[in-house]
């Protein structure tokens, strides 16, 4: 916002009227952080523990959703793991549409990729098993590494708070 105002001030003024210039008014309120935060509402919006806590609580009240050695000092592969994580979350959202009760937790143990997902109970077990096998086979073929899905079902999304 401030950068845009500075840019506009550099524009040439209108030829005839000396004082024809547009200004921008920026206020501090617009600079509020909005990342991964659920804004407080009327008290009817149920949020899970994961949604209720903002990113600055990671490491204090929240753990990490993805565990691998790529982000340690002196280790390589952080970018590749981040890309794999992004793809995996989209893939899971598409394979289990409407079923994911919470974010999937990705763990890497050496070559093995473990995906822990919390699902709702909308599908019968045999369909869930099919999707499990489908996801494991497809992801294993994509990434050339063993992929294990550990699914748990919950009756409903677990509300932590109502915002």
């Amino acid at each position, binding site marked *: 916002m401030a950068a845009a105002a500075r840019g506009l001030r550099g524009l040439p003024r209108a030829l005839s009227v000396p004082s024809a210039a547009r200004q921008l008014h920026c206020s501090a309120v617009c600079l509020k952080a909005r990342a991964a935060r659920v804004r407080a509402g009327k008290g009817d919006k149920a949020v899970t523990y994961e949604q209720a806590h903002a990113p600055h609580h990671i490491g204090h009240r929240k753990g990490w959703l993805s565990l691998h050695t790529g982000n340690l000092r002196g280790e390589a592969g952080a970018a590749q793991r981040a890309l794999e994580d992004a793809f995996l979350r989209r893939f899971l959202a598409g394979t289990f549409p409407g079923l994911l009760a919470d974010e999937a937790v990705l763990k890497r143990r050496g070559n093995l990729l*473990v995906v822990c997902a919390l699902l709702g109970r909308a599908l019968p077990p045999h369909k869930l098993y099919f999707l499990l096998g489908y996801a494991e086979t497809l992801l294993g073929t994509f990434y050339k590494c063993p992929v294990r899905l550990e699914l748990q079902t919950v009756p409903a999304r677990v509300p932590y708070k109502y915002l």
Partner: protein
Amino acid sequence: MAARAGPCCRAGLSGGALLSRALLSRALLSRALLSRASGTPAPPLWGRAAFSSAAAVSGREGPQAREGSVRRRGWTPQFARSAAPPRTERMAVDQDWSSVYPTAAAFKPASVPLPIRMGYPVKRGVPPPKEGNLELIKIPNFLHLTPPAIKKHCAALKDFCTEWPSALDSDEKCEQHFPIEIETVDYVSSGTSIRNPKARVVTLRVKLSNLNLDDHAKKKLIKLVGERYCQETDVLTITTDRCPLRRQNYDYGMHLLTVLYHESWKTEKWESEKSEEDMEEYIWENSRSQKNALDTLLRIKASENVSNVAEEELLASEVVKNYRNSVIALKNKGETESNMSQYKESVKKLLNIQA
């Protein structure tokens, strides 16, 4: 019978769901089929029952479970139908835990019979319970590594282990038989690649006392290696990483050691030009200190009008020997209290000054 939910599988999914959701038409179809199969007259298809979902999983349980089940259609995963009770309720206190968690696995609240709570509590509340608790799933757990489980691992691995050789029961024996120590590092990381460029570094360590070197060879070797030799521990350390593979770096390190050994035994022609600055330690013979001491003593003798005393006699005398030792100690070992006082005494004796 595709419309009927398949054979019920309680195992595997924790908090196992026994329900099947189907569209209304399929529910009607299955209801009709089931009732035809079981022989009972079909309940009214419309009305209250029109909004029922499909029958329960197994045909045998069909009639009881179907009655009085009013469910809402739509994609909400809200099911009040009873799921199987968690496995924890059927666990004996003395069960074999290593069969519940044989390998590293995520936390399963229905398999762990502990009343664990985790998370930041809401105001005037308690931490959230373990059911559906993502924080418990996120953290690595060691439920598969209880002491009895580790005992089982050790028992299984014992067949693949060999005993330490009984002849090598002390550090000195190990050093005597294996004087060269090779150090390599293997790196484990998570990801699809096992390559790590840091793994090619090889460090070779050997004590020079274990090598067959005479005085000249040892001094020449120390001069050749420079920083890689540690005076206190008498250890030569060679670190190689210039080759891409560990095996190549190891071979290069051994080659360096061999070359150093053989080169230090050779004496080149230009080594005879070694001057006083190149000396590693202070040698008193033919030094300025010796000349000065002899000069002083000769002049003392001349002033006392003593007949010419031979230099060798002077050098062999007690006072000069004392002086020589104290000067060598000062130069080689540095200045300490005892060194300085020793030097003071020897100078006093040399110049015959009695305080």
